[in-house]
């Protein structure tokens, strides 16, 4: 692969804190290597800003290997940028060429208030999990792991749903800022497994209820969430959640 360097213009959302009004600011970044990751390009820019005595751009990031779900940039109108099934930290600069302008914004959703610049508060997701995204088993209660064989296909489907990293790209991509893909991934993961069966009805109802309380929008089957999900979580999960939810309502499990 041919390596090259490039100069870029960045337009980045700057917002002092939750209360301040934000705006875009332009930055020139020089000599960016095509081998850098997108966040390493931000490191270079921030080092440059520190050297100039300016304040660096705040952004969330941690593992930088696409699994922790912390990074969260909305790049040129797309959650996590242009690469399919890729988090911001795994996007690499060989996607861009000399002279490009890149616009970077935070996740935008009422339920994800901005903390500073590109950093948003996603604790709503934790509260949704707390509302029912678990199996109620205390430490020490478990039986032998192989006493409960699970159909490989079911196990694989459950695993696929469980690979959600909770980054919030689905919400950012959705015009309604709906969290249905996130919620449905957890409901599916647990509903597909026999261990999750006893609580499946109440789980679906409680998690959806919490999602509504947090102020996420409704799902209108647009599919942008699936298209932008860095882990390829399927829309089938939303269909499954709808079935679970409807089934629960019909059977009268209205609350937890």
């Amino acid at each position, binding site marked *: 692969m041919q390596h090259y360097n490039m100069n870029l213009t960045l337009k980045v959302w700057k917002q002092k804190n939750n209360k301040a009004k934000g705006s875009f600011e332009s930055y020139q970044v020089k000599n960016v290597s095509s081998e850098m990751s997108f966040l390493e390009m931000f490191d270079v820019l921030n080092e440059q800003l520190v050297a100039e005595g300016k304040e660096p751009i705040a952004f969330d990031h941690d593992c930088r290997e*696409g699994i922790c779900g912390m990074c969260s940039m909305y790049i040129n109108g797309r959650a996590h940028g242009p690469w399919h099934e890729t988090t911001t930290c795994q996007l690499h600069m060989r996607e861009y060429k000399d002279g490009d302008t890149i616009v970077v914004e935070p996740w935008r959703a009422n339920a994800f208030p901005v903390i500073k610049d590109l950093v948003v508060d996603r604790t709503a997701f934790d509260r949704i999990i707390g509302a029912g995204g678990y199996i109620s088993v205390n430490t020490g209660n478990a039986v032998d*792991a192989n006493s409960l064989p699970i159909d490989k296909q079911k196990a694989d489907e459950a695993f696929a749903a469980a690979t959600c990293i909770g980054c919030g790209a689905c919400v950012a991509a959705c015009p309604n800022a709906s969290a249905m893909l996130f919620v449905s991934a957890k409901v599916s993961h647990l509903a597909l497994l026999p261990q999750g069966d006893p609580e499946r009805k109440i789980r679906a109802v409680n998690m959806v209820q919490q999602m509504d309380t947090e102020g996420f929008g409704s799902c209108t089957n647009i599919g942008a969430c699936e298209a932008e999900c860095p882990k390829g979580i399927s829309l089938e999960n939303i269909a499954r959640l709808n079935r679970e939810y409807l089934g629960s309502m019909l059977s009268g499990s209205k609350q937890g």
Partner: protein
Amino acid sequence: MALNSKIPAGSIETKWEKYKSTCKLVNPANKRQLEIIVVGTGLAGASAAASLGEMGYKVKAFCFQDSPRRAHSIAAQGGINAAKNYQNDGDSTYRLFYDTIKGGDYRAREGNVHRLAEVSANIIDQCVAQGVPFAREYGGLLSNRSFGGTQVQRTFYAAGQTGQQLLIGAYQGLERQISLGNVEMHSRHEMLEVVKIDGKARGIIARDLVTGELERHFGHAVLLCTGGYGNVFYLSTNAMGSNVTAAWKAHKQGAFFGNPCFTQIHPTCIPVSGDHQSKLTLMSESLRNDGRIWVPKAKGDSRKPTDIPEEERDYYLERRYPAFGNLVPRDVASRAAKERCDAGFGVGSSKMAVYLDFASAIERYGKVEAHKQGKGGADKATIIALGRDVVKEKYGNLFDMYAKITGEDPYEVPMRIYPAVHYTMGGLWVDYELMTTVPNLYALGEANFSDHGANRLGASALMQGLADGYFVIPYTMGNNLADDIRTKAIPTDHPAFVAAEKEVNDRINRLMNIKGKESVESFHKRLGKIMWDKCGMGRNAKGLTEAIEEIRALRKEFWSNVRIPGDIKEYNPELDKAGRVADFIELGELMCIDALNRNESCGGHFREESQTEDGEALRDDEKYMYVAAWEYKGESNFEMHKEDLIYDVVHPSARSYK
């Protein structure tokens, strides 16, 4: 101060059972009066916080990330060991115990390691009950694979995302306890001091990373589950935020630091591509089940790997270690890669890489698959296509990650890999009950030093984190807190809290007022370079002596010339990082002091002065069969205490994988 490891008496198989049935208990009504602080929410922290919450303790948990689910345990790829013997291949609790002791090059405690092996099977049961979707066979039962340093298949896994699935399991349990009100969660908070009252840990000072405000939190006990310190090397497979700060503050408050120089360099990571590199990415050890490691037989051979014929390749691990081949332990594989590259056989543009090749695995799996589908006489292209699908199912996410980072397709060309800092076996010294030398202060998971000796085996970190959190601390902490039930919650206006907060505040002000010229990042890189060059894969007395001087000079420079933009009372990641780098600098010095003291090679610690004729690590059991536990005595002043290691069961021998 004499170190007491508190290993229970009795034969190795009975120690833990006996401990559990005789330790003191806290009744439910008293548990409700006892407050516990858990710092860090990785596998150890989340499992401890959730379990203690279930038991009825009042728990407060802290993490610096935006959610407990982000802790770096999430990035563990390959798997978790457990002595289930589901494969009927001769595994047992004893064998897991033995492999771990031997893998750690006879520098771990027998009692702790045996307990780890005993509870390993419970962990798998617990995780499956929580809904962790481990890989399964067609019959519906759990699947296993092999990891380095073992000859059985005891590793449970969920594709290349085992850590993620285990952590999400623990996190869900934790969120359940949070919603029940048993655990109070403080995310985006960093612990900056341990508060001691009458010699016991009774709380912490934490900083709210969003507002910059300092907070005081009381606890009858404090659990540090804050992971390892690999980021002292700047480049490592750790997350960007992984740090030693909580452990280091504890150290300065009297907790001894055990074997700080014991660092694990992981053999299979994506090589450095340039100065911009911010972190290194691991390619799971599980890949060595199927990948073969090689370099060209000719020096400086710059042909494409696929153009180099079989007979001109040197599969150096298979050549040097026929019994274990590509599955030798990490320290051995790393040194062998370095040896080949240093000798001029490295590949890629930097020549600091070796190949990890899947071509033969793809073909082997393809043939099996073709037979299964009744296509016995299939052509090579069909076999390769079928084989790729199998490899994709096993390691797909790792291959994708490799392709995104390097721009190369590992299904077509072999991966280029090189060793990188991954894990730290050293950590806060703890006794059998996981208590540090500060009463009521505990360390769990990677943050403690106890179970892996001088080298950790693959898939054992997840095991230890969850063992400590789910199955050990609930007993051992109760045993001590049973004596504390009359201690009422101490109000946080107690002078000890006031003084600790002032200390933290003064330190932050000192940092902000330096107003120098050089960025925090730049200091961190410089520290990392010293550490990697002189306290990395190969260490010697001259280099370590120089490194100590260089680090001392770097510390002075840092405290007079670092530039931190922004303000204290706001979201300021540069300030957070400055505090962490300041602690890394001090730790780096101690690591070099420890490495200089230990004039033997063992596990990941390779002193060039101490090797066999064919370049293998040479232990010196006579002089160094002890844990070096360092006490902080003031700036650049550390006193070593020895805990002699006693092997009642396993007889230390030269560790051979040949």
